[in-house]
């Protein structure tokens, strides 16, 4: 797997390390003789490689400023800068390690007990603790982005839909994928965390079982030998070559989500895989034993040693002790011998030796062997230097006087496995602890979810291959059945042509396989007899303190015993109090031992003790992957470029970019009042409404009448909710008897459109409601000279008699077909011109050219706000809120209670009966130099009697004006109010009239 002809150089804490292609950071460091990779979270004890599989927290490093990466899972890349974390000043000499000597100061749950008193010292404690706590550091330096390395990089998302998704590319997963795609005819996605497929077969040598040759997926491979490596290569090749199988390697399935969606992190990409059928074939985790100093570098899980040997071609050490508790340990010992490691001793906690070729190999090599022995303690400070093994009785208790000291630099622990069933738990699979098998087995699967292989406690390669095939064919069968069902239910079953699938023969095949598998499965009674206290034996009685259960959070056996003694004897509360299983490994290394410990201390069975809830993410995921690119559209009007060229200052209005002003908002206001102004109002919501029930829909959705609106005329309207609350306003133009053109506010259009279509659907009205906001650009040309400007580029008769106020005409503006609306947007005579969006730049330029002689000015939102405030026009959502009805907003005239029915009618009638509580009024500040802020309070003595919603200095009037909600008693012309402007009381006078042109004469000119 490692290509020694291709060297790769990187640095670790500044030191140059030479590795080979195929190495991970961890294997390269091990090759370079570096044994200590990190420091413990709490006691800062040295930690080294343990699982070599990305399960334990011991090898977390910082790579190119991305913290806490599992170095045993990161392939080496030339030039990467790897740093250790949680150690100061260096990994070898970490000062914080003194905590280890004073660990009695940090008992379990210490954060609830110590550093609490005296209270005033807390800030000091906090400072110290915050510095000491946490893993890794975030580098906020944005220059990292420039360098193209590190965490400031591009992250993205991908969506995948598959018929069958298989998580895990081991023997079960490979067979499942090939069977589902082959016999099953399904499209398959196969996901594996490692760079290559094969799962545990990659590092556990041996032959493959002859029975497997009968499985179609294996038959097709036409294998020459019964060597596992050949099987893996052939299966992996077949999966990669299969046209219906998508293979994702170095891809971590970190969580199951509703709708059978799997979150997959692959490099800098988040893949959301939607699986019609899911097969979880995620294998299993080897579990550590709990003994004194079990966290010392040099102590490996058995499979960890096998990975070092077979995946990376490493010799793990010089002299090894192998602690076994199941059959797998003996193969590890044989592998160590083959790798040239002296095996000092093999101890097996069982009172007998298994009948296994590996045992005979070990015996033949002359290795001392002790059964009914297990490890009691490891020795060493920075690294393992030796161990003490001890004989145990039938209850797993050490026998006095039997201890043997062994010098070694490697300890292999091969005693127990636990199924990697996190995804199954998350999917809702019911899993039970089978006491006789001492293993977790699924009771029932949720729909469209299956498990196979080690993940569901199926053991033995023969059974695993069969289990994978069964899962693959079952998933394909279920998928075929659900597809047929959904094709029946939907008439437009797109892409319904799949290759024929013989359901009957698939069912027969499955029945046969299942019978075979049942025969192969471990018989509970036999398993019980053969296992005795193993694999359930995980810790022997001893009073030493450094017996780690949780390596992430440094929780010891004693911590858990103390917590249980304190009353935290339920696994869920025990977990929260001790933080066991809450670290980066998410319980992969500690959950089983914590549960067994809890069971032992409380005298319950493991099944009775139960498990803690599994939640995503099951494996650490980079925040960048989760926070990656999100689609946040920005909308530009078709005149955007022109605004930019005129020096627009931008304002975000929802997704739109709108010019706030072009340099001088006050001059813009003056220009509109004195000459002419042009504003881009393309962002206005626009709706085309037509159909026989169009009038009826308007009558019901607006508070005022539209039935009598003549064709060619325009009317302002307000929409309320059924609670009688104003939620949008706009104008309605009648184009024909059954055809209307409506505007809504920029921010309200989405809601208005959905509101209209919803009621149209609920009432089954015969209408088409079309949101044409983006189809039309719009400008408002206003001011005393507006007609003069427009006349230059428009073919219509613009005389007041021909085209009066509140009328609509269709004509050409700058030769572009347009709708012209004479409405009083900013309080001057003017035209709102709507035309196809593609002509935006052209019409804009033509109108500006036509207005040059009157010194027309473009104006932005700020000027628009001032101009409209001078007219006391409300902004729905700014001057009104979720409690404002039209009467309160001083628009009682817009509510036609006499209408037969409209949305809000009944509530408004009730509100009318209740009388006004508060009202929206205008105000003029006594001091024209004082402009209150929006939201500032209106007070009467100590009492709050209102709030400001809008306020501006009006250059037209030379006064500070605004709008405010005040209590009914103050809602009359001339009332004096006090506004707390920036906290200072200031005087203002209420007015109920528009500040400017109250009679609206200028509009009608």
């Amino acid at each position: 797997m490692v290509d020694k002809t291709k060297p790769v150089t990187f640095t670790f804490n500044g030191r140059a390390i030479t590795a080979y292609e195929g190495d991970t950071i961890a294997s390269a460091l091990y090759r370079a003789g570096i044994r200590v990779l990190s420091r413990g979270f709490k006691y800062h004890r040295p930690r080294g490689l343990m699982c070599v599989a990305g399960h334990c927290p011991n090898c977390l490093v910082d790579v190119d400023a991305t913290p806490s990466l599992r170095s045993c899972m990161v392939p080496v890349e030339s030039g990467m800068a790897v740093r250790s974390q949680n150690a100061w000043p260096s990994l070898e000499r970490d000062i914080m390690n003194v905590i280890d000597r004073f660990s009695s100061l940090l008992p379990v749950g210490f954060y609830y007990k110590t550093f609490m008193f005296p209270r005033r010292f807390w800030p000091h404690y906090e400072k110290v603790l915050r510095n000491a706590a946490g893993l890794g550091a975030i580098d906020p330096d944005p220059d990292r982005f420039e360098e193209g390395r590190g965490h400031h990089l591009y992250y993205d998302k991908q969506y995948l839909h598959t018929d069958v998704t298989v998580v895990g590319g081991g023997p079960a997963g490979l067979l499942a994928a090939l069977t589902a795609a082959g016999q099953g005819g399904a499209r398959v996605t196969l996901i594996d965390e490692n760079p290559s497929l094969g799962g545990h077969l990659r590092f556990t040598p041996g032959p493959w079982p002859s029975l497997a040759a009968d499985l179609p997926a294996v038959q097709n491979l036409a294998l020459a030998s019964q060597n596992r490596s050949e099987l893996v290569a052939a299966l992996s090749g077949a999966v990669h070559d299969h046209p219906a199988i998508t293979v994702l390697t170095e891809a971590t399935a970190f969580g199951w989500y509703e709708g059978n969606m799997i979150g997959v992190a692959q490099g800098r990409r988040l893949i959301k895989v939607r699986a019609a059928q899911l097969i979880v074939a995620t294998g299993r985790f080897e579990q550590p034993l709990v003994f004194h100093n079990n966290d010392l570098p040099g102590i490996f899980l058995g499979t960890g040693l096998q990975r070092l040997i077979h995946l990376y071609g490493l010799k793990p050490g010089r002299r090894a002790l192998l602690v076994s508790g199941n059959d797998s340990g003996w193969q590890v010992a044989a592998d160590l011998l083959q790798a040239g490691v002296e095996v000092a001793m093999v101890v097996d906690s069982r009172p007998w030796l298994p009948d296994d070729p590996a045992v005979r190999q070990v015996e033949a090599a002359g290795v001392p062997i002790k059964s009914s022995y297990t490890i009691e303690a490891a020795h060493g400070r920075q690294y393992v230097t030796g161990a003490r093994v001890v004989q145990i009785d039938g209850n797993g208790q050490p026998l006095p006087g039997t201890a043997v000291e062994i010098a070694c630099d490697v300890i292999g622990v091969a005693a127990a496995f636990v199924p990697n069933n996190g995804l199954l738990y998350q999917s809702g699979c019911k899993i039970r602890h089978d006491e006789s098998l001492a293993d977790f087995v699924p009771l029932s699967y949720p729909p469209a979810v299956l498990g196979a292989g080690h993940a569901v406690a199926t053991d033995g390669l023969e059974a695993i291959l069969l289990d994978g095939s069964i899962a693959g064919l079952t998933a394909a069968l279920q998928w075929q059945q659900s597809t047929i069902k959904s094709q029946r239910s939907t008439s437009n079953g797109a892409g319904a042509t799949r290759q024929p699938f013989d359901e009957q023969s698939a069912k027969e095949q499955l029945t046969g396989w299942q019978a075979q598998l049942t025969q192969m499965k471990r018989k509970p009674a036999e398993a019980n007899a053969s296992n005795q206290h193993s694999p359930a034996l995980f810790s022997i009685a001893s009073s030493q303190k450094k017996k780690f259960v949780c390596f992430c959070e440094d929780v010891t056996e004693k911590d858990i015993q103390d917590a249980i003694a304190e009353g935290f004897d339920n696994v869920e509360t025990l977990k929260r109090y001790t933080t066991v299983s809450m670290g980066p490994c998410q319980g992969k290394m500690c959950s089983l031992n914590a549960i067994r410990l809890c069971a032992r201390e409380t005298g319950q069975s493991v099944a009775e003790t139960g498990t803690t809830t599994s939640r995503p993410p099951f494996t650490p995921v980079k925040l960048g992957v989760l926070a990656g690119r999100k689609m946040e559209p920005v909308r530009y009007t078709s005149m955007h470029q022109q605004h930019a060229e005129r020096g627009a200052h931008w304002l975000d209005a929802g997704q739109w970019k709108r010019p706030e002003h072009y340099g001088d908002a006050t001059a813009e206001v003056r220009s509109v009042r004195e000459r002419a102004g042009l504003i881009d109002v393309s962002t206005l919501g626009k709706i085309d409404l037509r159909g026989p029930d169009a009038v009826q829909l308007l009558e019901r959705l607006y508070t005022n009448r539209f039935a009598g609106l003549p064709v060619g005329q325009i009317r302002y309207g307000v929409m309320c909710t059924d609670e009688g609350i104003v939620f949008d306003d706009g104008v309605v133009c009648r184009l024909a008897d059954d055809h209307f053109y409506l505007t809504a506010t920029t921010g309200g259009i989405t809601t208005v459109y959905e509101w209209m279509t919803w009621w149209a659907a609920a009432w089954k009205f015969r209408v088409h409601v079309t949101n044409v906001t983006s189809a039309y650009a719009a400008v408002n040309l206003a001011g005393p000279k507006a007609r003069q400007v427009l006349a230059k580029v428009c073919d219509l008769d613009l005389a007041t008699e021909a085209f009066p106020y509140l009328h609509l005409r269709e004509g050409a503006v700058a030769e572009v077909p347009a709708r012209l609306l004479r409405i009083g947007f900013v309080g001057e005579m003017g035209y709102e011109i709507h035309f196809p969006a593609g002509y935006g730049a052209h019409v804009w330029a033509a109108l500006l050219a036509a207005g040059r002689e009157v010194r027309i000015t473009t104006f932005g939102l700020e000027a628009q706000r001032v101009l409209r405030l001078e007219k006391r026009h409300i902004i729905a959502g700014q001057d009104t809120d979720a409690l404002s009805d039209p009467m309160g907003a001083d628009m009682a005239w817009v509510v036609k209670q006499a209408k037969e029915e409209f949305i809000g009618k009944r509530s408004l009638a009730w509100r009318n009966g209740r009388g006004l509580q508060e009202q929206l009024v205008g105000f003029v500040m006594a001091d024209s130099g004082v402009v209150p802020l929006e939201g500032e309070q209106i007070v009467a003595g100590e009492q709050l009697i209102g709030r400001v919603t809008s306020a501006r200095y009006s250059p037209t009037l030379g006064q500070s004006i605004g709008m405010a909600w005040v209590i009914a008693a103050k809602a009359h012309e001339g009332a004096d109010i006090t506004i707390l402007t920036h906290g200072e009381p200031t005087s203002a006078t209420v007015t109920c009239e528009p500040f400017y042109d109250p009679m609206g004469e200028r509009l009608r000119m």
Partner: protein
Amino acid sequence: MFQIECPNCGPRSVTEFRYGGEVNARPDGGDEREWATYLYARQNLLGVQTEWWFHRMGCRRWFLARRHTMTNEVLESYWP
């Protein structure tokens, strides 16, 4: 992120839709209590509920769906 079968577009992720709330008949007549119940009270059912959905990022049509509020299983979706 469960899926909803839009009667027009087929099964789509729930994120494409706007939830329109449980079906709530607008009273024609009745007393003030009934009106207030329509405005403010919801059944908040545990079980299969008929509700409005809008396919905002698809065909932009309103439809009705029967959904189990605990499992999010959508049993049926249809035009009003």
